[in-house]
C-alpha cells in the first residue's frame, strides 16, 4: 500500500505535480511589476484560478471514480496517487491565485474550506499509509467476525459454567457478560475506552468493569477461599475464560478504534468537499456579478 500509492508508476504524478507547481510559480512571478499587484484578477490570476477550479472538480471526481468498478479510465490506485499529489499542489496553486489576499468574504471561505479538505486529506493519507499495518498487527491475522464469533462462544461457555455456580458468582459473571460494552457512539468507538459495568453482590448500582478487571479480580480473590475442589476448579475455569475474554475485547476495541480512525477524516473530507464545490461556484459567480 505504502509504496504503491505514493510511488505509483515511479511517482509519475509527483513529477506532474511538481511541474504544475513550478509553472504556477513562474506564472505568479510574471505578475510582479505589472499593471496591478498580483491577484486573482490578472490574466495570470485567471489562469491559476481556472487551473485550481478544474483541479478541485477533478479531485472531487475521485469519489465517483472509486465507485465505478467497471470503469477502464485508469486504475483507482493511479487516480488516488494523482489525487494525493495534485491535491497537495492545489494548495500552492490556489494560494498563488489569491496572492495571499484574505478577507471576510466568500472567496476566503472557499479557500478555507479547500484548506480543510486538503489538510484532512493529509491526515487521510497518513491513516491509509500507517493504520492498515497496525490493524493487521492488532488483529493477529483474524478478521473481526472471527473474534466476535470466539467472543460469543466464550460468553456461552461462561453462561453455562455460571449457571452451575452459586447465586453470587452467577450474578457477577452473568452481569459482567450482560453489561459489557463494545463500540457505541462515534466518540466511544474512537476513544476505545471501556464503558463495561458489572453488578457486584449485595445490590446497589453496577460498577465500572474496565477491561473485565473487576470481575477477574473478584474471581481470583475467591480462589483461595474456595470451600471445595470443584468450586476452585470452576473459579479457575471462569478465570481462564474471562482472561481470554479480556484479550478479545481489547483486540476488538482497538480494531474498532483503528477502523474508525481510518474513516473519521472522511467525515470532514467529504462534506467539506461538497461545501467547497458550492463555495467555489459562488466565488466564480459572485466575481462576475460584480465584475
Amino acid at each position: 500500500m505504502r509504496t504503491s500509492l505514493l510511488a505509483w508508476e515511479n511517482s509519475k504524478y509527483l513529477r506532474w505535480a511538481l511541474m504544475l507547481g513550478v509553472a504556477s510559480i513562474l506564472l505568479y512571478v510574471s505578475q510582479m511589476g505589472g499593471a496591478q499587484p498580483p491577484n486573482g484578477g490578472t490574466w495570470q490570476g485567471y489562469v491559476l484560478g481556472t487551473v485550481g477550479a478544474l483541479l478541485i472538480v477533478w479531485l472531487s471526481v475521485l469519489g465517483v471514480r472509486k465507485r465505478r468498478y467497471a470503469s477502464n479510465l485508469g486504475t483507482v490506485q493511479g487516480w488516488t496517487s494523482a489525487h494525493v499529489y495534485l491535491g497537495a499542489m492545489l494548495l500552492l496553486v490556489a494560494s498563488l491565485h489569491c496572492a495571499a489576499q484574505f478577507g471576510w468574504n466568500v472567496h476566503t471561505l472557499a479557500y478555507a474550506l479547500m484548506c480543510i479538505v486538503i489538510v484532512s486529506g493529509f491526515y487521510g493519507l497518513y491513516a491509509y499509509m500507517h493504520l492498515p499495518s497496525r490493524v493487521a498487527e492488532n488483529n493477529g491475522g483474524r478478521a473481526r467476525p472471527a473474534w466476535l464469533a470466539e467472543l460469543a462462544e466464550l460468553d456461552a461457555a461462561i453462561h453455562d459454567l455460571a449457571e452451575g455456580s452459586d447465586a453470587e458468582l452467577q450474578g457477577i459473571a452473568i452481569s459482567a457478560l450482560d453489561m459489557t460494552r463494545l463500540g457505541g457512539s462515534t466518540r466511544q468507538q474512537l476513544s476505545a475506552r471501556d464503558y463495561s459495568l458489572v453488578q457486584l453482590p449485595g445490590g446497589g448500582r453496577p460498577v465500572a468493569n474496565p477491561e473485565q478487571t473487576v470481575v477477574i479480580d473478584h474471581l481470583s480473590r475467591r480462589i483461595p477461599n474456595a470451600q471445595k475442589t470443584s468450586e476452585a476448579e470452576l473459579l479457575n475455569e471462569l478465570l481462564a475464560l474471562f482472561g481470554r475474554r479480556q484479550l478479545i475485547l481489547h483486540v476488538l476495541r482497538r480494531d474498532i478504534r483503528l477502523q474508525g480512525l481510518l474513516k473519521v477524516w472522511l467525515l470532514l473530507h467529504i462534506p467539506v468537499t461538497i461545501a467547497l464545490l458550492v463555495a467555489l461556484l459562488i466565488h466564480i459567480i459572485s466575481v462576475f456579478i460584480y465584475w
Partner: protein
Amino acid sequence: MHFLIRKQTGRSDREALDTEYQGDALTLGAADDAMVQLAGMRGQLRIESAGAGDARVVSKKTSFVLNGESFNGTKLKVGDVLSSEGYELTVIAAPAGFDFAMELVVSASARGMQAGAMALADTAWSSRKIGWALAVIILAAFLVLPLAGVFQDNLAALMRQTPLPDDGLWSSGPLAAAHQTSGIAADCQACHQQPFVMVEDAACLDCHRETTEHVDVSVFEAHAFTGERCASCHREHNEPAQLVRRDNDLCVDCHADPVAWQVDGRTPMQAVSAFTEQAHPTFRLALLTPKGPGAAHGWQTERARADNGEVLQEQSNLKFTHAVHLDPDKVQSELSGAALQCDSCHAPRDDGEHFEPVTMDNHCRSCHTLNFDVFEPDLELPHGDQRAAVVAMEAHFIREFTDPDLRRERASTKPRRVPGKRQSAATCAGNGLDCGRAEALKEAQYQFAETGCVTCHVVEYTGLSDINDRWFVQPVRVIDDWYPFSRFDHASHRSLAIEGSAEVCESCHQASLSEQSSDVLIPGQDNCLGCHSQEKGFSQVDCVSCHVFHHDEGTPSVLARDVSPGHANASAVQGGER
C-alpha cells in the same frame, strides 16, 4: 422500598437470578447510573412508591408499553407486563420482605445488544447529509440572500444594516482609502451598477468630473483609447491598494514606438522604453521666446532638447548674474547684512515643484531703488510701466522748475553727491516748463541708457525725438514651468541637504557659477539618472513618478466618454477617425 428483580438466566424457565435493590425508586435502563442495566435501551424506566405498598411506573423516553399500551405514572398490579425491544418485565407477587417484585426476561436479540455500533457509518452523521447541510447554508448565506439584495434595494439596505449576510461578502478586498467614504464603501452598487457588467466609466465620472483624457481626442486618434475603461487601469479591491498603475507598460506600450501615433504638423514624439540614458529621450526644456519685436505679439513657449552637447540659452531679457548676487563679498542682505541665500528670492509654491515669481518690488527694490533726484532720495520711479516712469520724471522736474519757492530752496542747497547718481541741475535759465522738460529728458537719458533701468533691462534706443518713444525697455519674462510635462517634488529632494539650504539647491542648480542670466540652471536628465536610472538598483523611478497620464490638454472625460447610464458603449472612448 425493597425491590426484587428476578432475572431468567438459563435455558429453562426454572432458573433465575434474584437481585434485590433498596431505595426510593428503582431505575432501569442503559445509562451508567441505572440500577438495573438494560443494555441498548433508550431512556429510563422508573418504578417508585405510590403509597400503601403500591408502585407506579414512569417512562422517561423509553419505548416500553404496559400491557401493550402507552402509559405514564400508571400504578402497577401483579400480572402487568412492561415490554420493549427484547425485554419483558412482568410484575409478580412480592415475596416476604419485599415491597415489589418483577420478573425480567431478556430475549436473545437484546443480549446481543451489549455490543454497540462498531462502525462509524452506524453512528456518525452521514457525510452526505453534513455535506448537503453545509452546501445549503453556504448557498443561502453567500449567494441567495446577497443576490436578492441586488434586485431589491430595500432588502440590500436592510441586510447591510444588520448582521445578515449582504453583498459585501462578495468583496474581493478592501477599497482604497479614498473610496472608503459614505455612499461608496458599503454600497457595492455605487460602482457595480449592473450585474455581470464590468464597472462602467459613468460610475467613476459621477464624482471625478474634472478628469481629462490622455490627449485631445480631436487631435489624436481616439480609437487608440477605445475600449479602455477607467477601471482598465484603476483597479480596486487590491492588496496592497494600487489605484494608479506604476508599471512602465502603461506608457511604453505606445511610446516605445510612437511613430504610429504621430500626428502631422506636431513635433514628432521620441521613443521611450524606460528611464535610462539610452531608453529615455533627452529632457525637453520649455523656453520662452518673445514673438515679434519687443514681444509685441506676446511670448511663445518653445521646447528644446540639449542634444549633441548643445547649450540651451534662456531669453528672458533680464540682465542678472547669480554669481554676483550669491557672492557674500559683493551682495549682502539690506536687512541683515548677511550673504544672500537661494531662498532670499526663491520661495517654493505649495505644489512643491514650482516657485513664486521673483518680483522687483519684493526682491530687487530694497537694493535697486529707482530714486532719480538726489534732492528727493525717497522719491522713486514707478516700475514696470515705461510711460508712467517718463510722466513721473516730467511731472517732477516741471514742478521743481515752476515752483519759485522750490527753485530758491534747491538753488541754496548743495546736496551730497551720491555715487552712481546724476547730479540734477539746480538752476535753469528758461521758463519752468522748458527747464522741467529738459531736465526730465536728461534724467530719462541717464535712467534708460546709462544706469537705472538699463542695469537690469535691455533698453533699445530708437532715435525718435519724443521722450516717450526714444527708448524701449524690452519686457522681461521668466518661464514658470521648465518641464511642463513632468512633475517634480522639491520637498522630497531636501534629503540632499548636507548643510545649509544653498548647498541643497546647488547640488542640482549651480547658480553661484552662473555669470549670465541666459544660463539655464535647470538640470537635465544626467542629474536625475545618477540616482533614479532604472538600470541602477537604488531610488528607481517609473514613468508616472514624473509624468501624468491625464494631461490638462486632454479632452474632459465626461465629454470624451458617453456617460449616459445603460448605454451599450458607455465604457469606451467614443471612437472615430480624425
